């Protein structure tokens, strides 16, 4: 019964996607969204989504509360809530829930179904107990929004599509090689993840390279970050949150690439840490001078994910625990920041932080939005008392003894990230009020969503033991499957 709750938790976002296709209003480009009927339908989408995503979260909460990592088998496919997924999957859902609550009403059209389908696909990847489920979730995450991207007017849409197709091909090829080798070995369960990333495979190195490339491409970290900018420019609000808060590239890296790398090469860890560090530094440096708000948040997320990779690569219990906690904090923090971004864009359109034209002074008209930005931004960049601080502290202590230089450079990325959020906030909210006199401040539902994000980030930061213990158990992870249904 408990195992079926897992299935329900994963299925509900897909059900929601279909429901939204049925009841959601047409996108504004095709039909006037000003019509009262459309606005009512948009609200129905919101409340339907809140209920179904909330139920999905409740299902995972029940499974996690039982604490015995059940395995759900459906033919050759299986789902399991163990390892890092036990913390990451709920954080994806919380991020989606908050973004849905705060989403601009006119963005809740049928196109929103794509975001919920991608959420379901992300859950499939995070909870996958075998190669087929993982590959299916991975492919759905790319293919479902494909039409949306192709129809987008943004330049660079081919880059988004190209990188998406490439990462599906890379992961599929890597996994296929692993399955083939497992079948050749006569492995009893050739589709099991452990079998696919076995170092005994003659294609182990090729599998490692392909899977790592696919994961890094999904994480949009340097040098696979090129799709990030056009995506940030073009994505609808909810899809933007889901794609960045639920970054399943990290899951693949932690669950597949890292174990295989460490079992194949003695000196793999510094290499992976170096990749993470490069990603963190590149995104941090790139974000400092970026003038588009959406890109700033996307790059900030990329930088923080890089820091998470550095922590995950340390292999020690502290750093690995810090990495899992950090990934959850990134999901929550990113969703909080994007709620503010979406709220501002709903009022002003796409926002450019043009240094030449000076600050926009939105704080005069939107003081609550300004407060929310700075509070969430600083909790995201590891201010003490936040969940991100706990994560960074753990990573730091786990890493310094082994890689002192990497640690110092990682902290440089952290400093740049703080400067970035401050600079973006200053450009947007501070300075003389320019064109913002008639802009309304945050609505109640937007404030509630941000207050929840803040409460989770700070509440879990002030009393982090339950989260850290949970993450520690997740790191020891691979808890033996107690039972299967």
């Amino acid at each position, binding site marked *: 019964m408990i195992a079926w709750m897992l299935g329900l938790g994963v299925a509900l976002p897909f059900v929601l996607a279909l429901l939204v296709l049925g009841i959601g209003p047409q996108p504004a480009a095709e039909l006037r969204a*000003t019509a009262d009927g459309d606005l009512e339908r948009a609200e129905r989408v919101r409340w339907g989504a809140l209920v179904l995503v909330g139920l999905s979260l409740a299902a995972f909460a029940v499974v996690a509360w039982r604490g015995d990592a059940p395995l759900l088998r459906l033919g050759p496919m299986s789902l399991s809530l163990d390892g890092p997924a036990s913390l990451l999957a709920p954080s994806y859902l919380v991020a989606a829930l908050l973004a849905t609550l705060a989403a601009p*009403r*006119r*963005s809740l059209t049928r196109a929103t179904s794509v975001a919920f389908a991608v959420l379901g696909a992300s859950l499939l990847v995070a909870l996958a107990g075998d190669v087929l489920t993982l590959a299916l979730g991975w492919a759905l995450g790319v293919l479902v929004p494909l039409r*949306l991207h192709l129809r*987008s*007017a*943004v*330049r*660079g849409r081919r880059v988004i599509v190209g990188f998406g197709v490439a990462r599906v091909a890379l992961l599929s090829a890597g996994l296929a090689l692993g399955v083939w080798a497992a079948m050749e070995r006569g492995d009893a369960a050739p589709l099991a993840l452990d079998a696919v990333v076995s170092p005994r495979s003659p294609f182990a190195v090729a599998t490692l390279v392909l899977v790592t490339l696919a994961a890094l491409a999904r994480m949009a970290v340097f040098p696979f970050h*090129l799709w990030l900018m056009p995506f940030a*420019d*073009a994505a*609808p*609000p909810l899809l933007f949150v889901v794609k960045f808060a639920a970054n399943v590239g990290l899951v693949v890296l932690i669950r597949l690439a890292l174990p295989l790398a460490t079992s194949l090469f003695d000196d793999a860890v510094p290499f992976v840490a170096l990749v993470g560090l490069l990603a963190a530094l*590149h995104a941090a*440096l*790139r974000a*400092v*001078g*970026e003038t588009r708000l959406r890109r700033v948040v996307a790059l900030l997320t990329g930088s923080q994910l890089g820091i998470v990779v550095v922590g995950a690569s340390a292999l*020690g219990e*502290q750093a690995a625990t*810090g990495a899992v906690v950090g990934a959850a904090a990134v999901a929550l923090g990113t969703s909080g920041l994007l709620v503010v971004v979406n709220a501002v*864009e*709903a009022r*002003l*359109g*796409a926002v*450019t932080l043009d240094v030449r034209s000076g*600050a926009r002074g939105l704080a005069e008209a939107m003081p*609550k939005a300004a*407060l929310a930005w*700075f509070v969430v931004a600083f909790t995201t960049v590891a201010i*003490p*008392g936040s969940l991100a601080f706990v994560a960074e502290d*753990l990573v730091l*202590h*786990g890493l*310094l*003894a082994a890689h002192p230089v990497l*640690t*110092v450079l990682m*902290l440089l990325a952290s*400093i740049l990230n703080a*400067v970035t959020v*401050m600079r973006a906030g200053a450009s947007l*909210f*501070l*300075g*003389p*009020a320019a064109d913002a006199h008639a*802009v*309304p401040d945050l*609505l109640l539902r937007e404030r*509630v969503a941000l*207050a929840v994000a803040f409460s989770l980030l700070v509440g879990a930061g002030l009393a*982090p*033991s339950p989260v850290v213990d949970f*993450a520690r158990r997740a790191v020891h992870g691979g808890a033996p499957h107690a039972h299967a249904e």
Partner: protein
Amino acid sequence: MLEWLPLLAVLAIAAPFVAALGVGIVSFLARVPAESTSHRVILGSLATSAAALAALAVITMRSGRPYLEIELGHWFRAGHYEFELAFLLDELSLGFGLLVAIVGILIGRFAVHYLHRESGHARFFGFLGLAVSGLEVVALAASYDILFVGWEIVGVSSVAMVLFFHTRPGPVRAAMQVLLSYRIADLGILLGAVVLHDAAGTTRYEAVFEHGAWPLGATHIEVSAATIVGALLVLSAAGKSAQLPFSAWLPRAMEGPTPSSALFYGALSIHAGVFLLLRSAPLFEHAPVARAALITVGGATALYAALTGRVQSDAKGQMAFATMAQVGVMFVEIGLGFTTLAALHLVAHAFLRGFQLLRTPSVIADVRRIQAELRGRPLPQESAIERSLPLPLARRLYRLALERFHLDTLAQRLVTGPVMRASLLLAAADDAMVEALSGGPDAPDGASGTTNETVRPAGPPPRDETLRVGGGGA
């Protein structure tokens, strides 16, 4: 009585924090509280904190022990690492803690009238509570790990206070400079704590400095580790206390309202670096190179600030450099081992400078009163040293002082300029590669480019209803 210690310590730290959080949450979810509500809540919490600290001081004195430690378990732990929650009660921590509480109350009381009808009244009191809470954590911490938590809270509050008049461009630029200086300097204490974990297995003062009440005690860690940690702590202290090479932010930080300037840059926050060094004094006994660095930084800053302060044309600017110079002298005192003198200097200077900064809005009235008292006699001039200098040297120093020894230019050329250039270069490279991968210009539907124009998200365009005040269309 000792069983009350944990509760009192938590009260001293948490009361202002909870009050500040309450003001913030109410402001965000409902509406900004009335002036009387916000200042009563915060000042009440500061008074609670002060009373708890006074009780802690009495209990500590009556215990007959030179210091007491309060164990509150751990904040979190993973593997062998445990973030312990422990507080230390001794002369230094209780002295600084009481100083923070008293000055906080005095300046808060002053601000009740001074900021009357300012739009940021509640915001000021919220951040006052947060700052005092952070400073109490710094004061009472029993380890560098915990001290860092308070240290960061103070930094955030300080930046927020600089931004008090956020509609002016000056405070926004100043806040960026303060934040950057703080974050770079924070590296020192963060890395120092981790190195201490490696060298001593803990960052608890008791273990690092072994037995003995402050300022006694000796560290047993190796000279090399002590030197690294000492140098890192000097870096952090220099950043927080606006010593060279971080001095440029202090005069700019005076953009905040007078009470916040008095609180942060006259009385308390500016002395947090000195407190850190005083707390770490036994470590410097064991690290002569770090001591030399400390003396050099303090001495150079005192000289720089004394020279530059003399050419400042505004009262708060003069105060900023005078503060910097005095703090530099405190650094030297600690470096030379005069820790008790430095502690006394800190307390006296905090009260004096806090008072002087609170008086700066009335400086013209004060000067007129002094002139009236002098009955036409000229104001005393303090130019004996300048007159004794050779004219070319005096001119050169005057020019350098006017330019603030080019610190801003150096920071721009060596730090911010290269970082921004690198960032823009990376952005240009990305745009070029996206362009190339997209097969060149390909906007059949009139889509805008990615480089110089704003690109609208694929969602619908902004709606008229969202632009109305109070509109519910968002």
